[in-house]
């Protein structure tokens, strides 16, 4: 009750300020890039996300129009309480307005709660949990790049329609893996495919050989990897060793980034299928951005879809700020404006943000090229299918977000 009154008061004050001092706008903004700088996710987010944020600031052109925009960054060490503390301190002490990136679902959910409490803005690019726009959605959070539902449905249905209609799952035995397997199974069945079986393996398994033997024996056309990070790369590497792909089976990774493909090398990764929402070599605009990004990156890697998400989400945020004219400190109001405006940026094309905070854009089913098909460094993917924006993500009527009035 108290917070509602203060929100009302704040709203009144803001409205009053906006009406009377329109010419004396507050035009200072602070962007916080919170990421895993040192651990498992540092390659797909990390320093690259900070760089992407800086590039978005430069490309927005707002600094030339009297805005003062700072970017700061920090390492959440993959610890939810460290992430929550940094977020809280950023709002209380450093006066940060918007937090971007935040890979690792646990940290992202913790940060989302703080952001709501502080009425800031949170645009998540790095985390996969679809809870952010379902059970745990807030009026202050936007989920930009991808989520587990989209990965599962994209790969599951597109691959089944492309002929991979019998599946066998290798699933990491925890909530994330189970959700991926469940969603993919639904998509496979809906597309007319069959699931022949599956196996649950513990997290951080270094040896997949016995699981792969069982996958091989199942004779399924597609082996779906419902796991992440080191588990996925190890499974792919060992599948190549056991000759699964030579035997005619397709490997489908349900969560994989270009940084992983780069790490595996084409020899091992060739023939792998997975879904992403961004690839550097899609069109002239993505190529131009990616080249600039690559030049400025410390180890000259190409941007991942997470980096692209940070960049394009901030561009949209700046557009909303420009439309509002100033006073960027009421998070929920800015987010409402962002949802109202259609999105259009060089990397993800045209799209929109749904009322539950889900950003909608097309997704792509890729296959990793063979070494002979690849024409140069980072030439890794060929496009198999495009999943249109309105099919790629959770349909609104299935979202359990409390912001949706039903």
């Amino acid at each position, binding site marked *: 009750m108290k917070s509602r009154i203060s929100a009302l008061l704040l709203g009144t004050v803001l409205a009053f300020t906006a009406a009377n001092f329109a010419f004396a706008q507050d035009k200072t903004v602070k962007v916080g890039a919170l990421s895993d700088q*040192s*651990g*498992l*996710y*540092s*390659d*797909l987010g990390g320093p690259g996300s900070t760089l992407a944020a800086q590039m978005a600031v430069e490309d927005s052109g707002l600094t030339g129009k009297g805005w003062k925009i700072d970017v700061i960054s920090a390492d959440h060490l993959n610890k939810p309480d460290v992430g929550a503390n940094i977020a809280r301190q950023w709002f209380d002490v450093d006066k940060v307005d918007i937090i971007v990136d935040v890979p690792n679902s646990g940290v992202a959910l913790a940060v989302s709660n703080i952001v709501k409490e502080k009425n800031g803005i949170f645009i998540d690019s790095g985390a996969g949990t679809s809870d952010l726009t379902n059970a745990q959605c807030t009026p202050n959070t936007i989920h930009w790049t991808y989520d587990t539902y989209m990965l599962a449905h994209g790969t599951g249905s597109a691959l089944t329609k492309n002929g991979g209609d019998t599946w066998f799952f290798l699933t990491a*035995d925890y909530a994330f893996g189970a959700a991926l397997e469940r969603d993919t199974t639904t998509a496979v069945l809906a597309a007319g495919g069959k699931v022949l079986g599956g*196996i*649950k*393996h*513990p*997290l*951080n*398994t*270094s*040896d997949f*050989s*016995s*699981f792969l*033997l*069982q996958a*091989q*024996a199942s004779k399924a056309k597609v082996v779906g990897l419902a796991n992440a*990070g*080191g588990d996925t*790369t*190890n499974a792919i*590497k*060992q599948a190549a*060793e*056991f*000759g699964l792909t030579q035997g005619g089976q397709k490997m489908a990774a349900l969560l994989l980034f270009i*940084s*992983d493909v*780069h*790490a*595996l*090398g084409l*020899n*091992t990764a060739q023939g792998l299928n997975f879904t992403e929402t961004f690839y550097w070599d899609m069109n002239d605009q993505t190529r131009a951005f990616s080249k600039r990004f690559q030049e400025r990156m410390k*180890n000259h890697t190409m941007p991942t879809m997470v980096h692209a998400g940070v960049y394009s989400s901030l561009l949209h945020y700046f557009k909303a700020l420009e439309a509002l004219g100033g006073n960027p400190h009421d998070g929920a109001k800015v987010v409402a404006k962002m949802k109202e405006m259609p999105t259009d940026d060089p990397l993800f094309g045209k799209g929109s943000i749904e009322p539950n905070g889900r950003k909608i854009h097309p997704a792509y089913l890729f296959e990793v090229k063979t070494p002979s098909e690849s024409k140069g460094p980072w030439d890794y993917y060929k496009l198999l299918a495009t999943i249109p924006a309105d099919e790629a993500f959770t349909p609104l009527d299935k979202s359990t977000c409390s912001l949706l009035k039903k």
Partner: protein
Amino acid sequence: MQALYAQLLVGLINGSFYALLSLGLAVIFGMLNIINFAHGALYMMGAFCAYFLLNLANIGYWPALIIAPVAVGIFGMILERTLLRWLTGLDHLYGLLLTFGLALIIQGIFQNYFGSSGLPYSIPDALKGGANLGFMYLPIYRGWVVVFSLVVCLLTWYLIERTRLGAYLRAATENPTLVRAFGINVPRMITLTYGLGVGLAALAGVLSAPINQVRPQMGADLIIVVFAVVVIGGMGSIMGSIITGFALGVIEGLTKYFYPEASNTVVFVLMVLVLLVKPTGLTGRAN
């Protein structure tokens, strides 16, 4: 039933890594009375060393099998000379803490320079492909790992239990003062022993490079499992740690077949059971 044979064989492969690593730990513990927490990090360095040799110097798998353990072993000896030596006479727990710190440093530095997703390293051409054994498809490389590590384990056992050098070593463990009185340079033997143990870890790293992704964190979780193996086997005898390593690999393989969800925890559960029945470990002497 066929699948069972396959799992047994696969378990044996995993067991060879446990055996090599716990053997290295046991060798170091026997001589220095230190539990080497940096063992996992040094194992990782072995794998990275193989990667560097291939990509910077164009030196392939076979030479790397010798060069990497020697190089990492020398690195280990430098660590022993410059850091671990200062702990002589202190409580053994300080050795654990120091090597834990070293592990953090080594893993952190590799993480900074090479990221977390790792680097590719492929199977040498001579060992590519596989053989159909009737009940399973066995990649040749896996078979090679089992045979090779078994040979290395037995050689190490022979070196320590059956040669004159080994006799000095064992004597120096029992009574360093007396051995020194015979004119044997005990500090140098300690350094060499640490180098040997570290070299074994690095060798395991090279062996695993073509199978597992070469990542900075590849040894971090493995070392805890190996600790459990060591607790189960006890560090009383070299042969004990070899056998326990292989045996636990097989047991883990069987778990993967019958109840895959528990395959990561089975070693720890076994450790608890062994502790309840025979606290000194299967081969350990009461001390």
